[in-house]
């Protein structure tokens, strides 16, 4: 696997210290093994999509990377600057929008920083609104601003678009990509949606029973992925248990299939 990676990435020297590194990470709840000997590296500025069925361990992995669960002496290194956007925006309804964005920030220019982040997501006019008056898309953009204002090196997106309507979702995809290009955090996007993963990510991982069972690197430009979508889609759906004949398409490199 190391050989394959070295070969396919062509210039391994380009990769500095990874932003995230998990070695043989295992997580158990009682006798249930949720994550089973997982290795994961995310390069700085890399956009990763993590696909998996319900119960595959996605959320556990995300919580670990977010520092919300204890790692208990395992080999886990994550950047200290990280931020999460949850599926439900999880804004505090008793704090005005800008105060939600500024939550937990220290220093004197908190309002200015929150304002800048909200302008960036196109909500400069809703600074003093109450969260419960926002639409679903607006609330999710506030959540994005709240994450961005922390200048994260690792941005964790936990199915952030799942509850949005199709049109809003497309707009949010564009917004996330433009924010990612502007700030270049490493991104881990947890999603059910294969098309979303293909449209956004540099690399798609499929998690099943706590192991990464497939890994696809997408080299095609983001605007130019319509052609490869079908074959890759079928392959990824196959890994998710939706049976279709896997097809290898141009512009896609299969790295490690089914290492069971």
């Amino acid at each position, binding site marked *: 696997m190391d050989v394959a990676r070295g070969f396919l990435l062509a210039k391994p020297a380009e990769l500095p210290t990874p932003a995230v590194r998990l070695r043989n990470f295992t997580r158990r709840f009682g006798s249930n093994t949720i994550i089973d000997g997982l290795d994961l590296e995310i390069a700085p500025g890399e956009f990763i999509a993590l696909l998996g069925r319900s119960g595959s361990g996605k959320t556990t992995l995300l919580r670990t990377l*977010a*520092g*919300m669960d204890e790692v208990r002496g395992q080999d886990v290194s994550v950047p200290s600057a990280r*931020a*999460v956007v*949850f599926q*439900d925006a*999880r804004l*505090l*309804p*008793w*704090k005005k929008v800008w105060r939600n964005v500024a*939550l*937990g920030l220290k220093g004197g220019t908190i309002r200015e920083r929150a304002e800048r982040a909200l302008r960036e997501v196109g909500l400069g006019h809703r600074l003093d609104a*109450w*969260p*419960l*008056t926002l639409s679903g898309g607006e609330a999710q953009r506030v959540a994005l601003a*709240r994450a961005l204002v*922390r200048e994260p090196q690792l941005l964790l997106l936990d199915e952030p678009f799942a509850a949005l309507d199709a049109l809003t979702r497309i707009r949010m995809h564009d917004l996330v990509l433009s924010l990612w290009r502007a700030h270049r955090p490493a991104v881990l996007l947890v999603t059910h949606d294969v098309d979303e993963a293909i449209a956004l990510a540099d690399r798609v991982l499929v998690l099943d029973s706590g192991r990464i069972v497939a890994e696809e690197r997408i080299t095609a430009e983001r605007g130019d992925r319509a052609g490869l979508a079908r074959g890759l889609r079928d392959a990824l759906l196959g890994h998710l248990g939706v049976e279709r004949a896997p097809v290898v398409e141009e512009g896609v490199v299969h790295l490690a299939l089914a290492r069971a």
Partner: protein
Amino acid sequence: MTAYAESAPRRHAISFTLPARLLGRWFSPLVLLLLWELGSRTGLIPERTLAAPSAVLGALVAMIASGELPSNLLVSFGRVSIGLSIGISAGIALALVAGLSRSGEITVDPLMQIKRTIPVVALSPLFIVWFGIGETTKIALIAFATVFPVYLNLYSGIRAVDPRLIDAARSFGLSRIELIQHVILPASLPSLLVGLRFSLSVAIIVLVIAEQINASAGLGYLINNARDFMRTDIIVVCLMVYALLGLGADWIVRAVETRALAWRPSIVEQN
């Protein structure tokens, strides 16, 4: 056909008698008042049973003019204020201890549940033995009675805070103190206000009972005195004042609610 049938009762409602339309919800109480006055004037209701509304009004004016009512009201108001302050503070403190720590819950909650089973009024003999028949007993009864509503509501409010919000706040690096300040307390504020409203009405009830204990001033004293002289007009005036105290207390909590819970959708939409 159906349209006609639907509009018929509405037309009926509109053509309801003129005074009812003008007075709205004041109509029936005013009619009752009128009948009461009429009954008193014709001698149907003897004065020693119930004084006429006009006599009550007269007594009210006289009691205000003589300073009798304001001074005694002040005494009662003082008792409620002190008792409530003690009860509410203790209730909040105990709820915070029980709500924010596991060991606090184990220590405090069983005691509070035991306390709840004892009717406060039944404690008055014991309190009289302990504190005598002066102010202390009255204040202690009010304080003791008002602890529980605040405690129970705030405690369950703290326990019911959405764990997902706590999770999110933690992920943004909030310390425990910041978490309590920014998430847990604001989230449980609506519950605290519900408890506060209960406590205020309980306080008025206990005030009435406590003032039956050998009071030498206050609304209860006025009522007891009036009973001895069969002055039903003064008794009714005091009942009105008790009612106004209750209304006032409710109004205060509602005013606090509108300000403190401005973020709630029902209130937001009204703006």
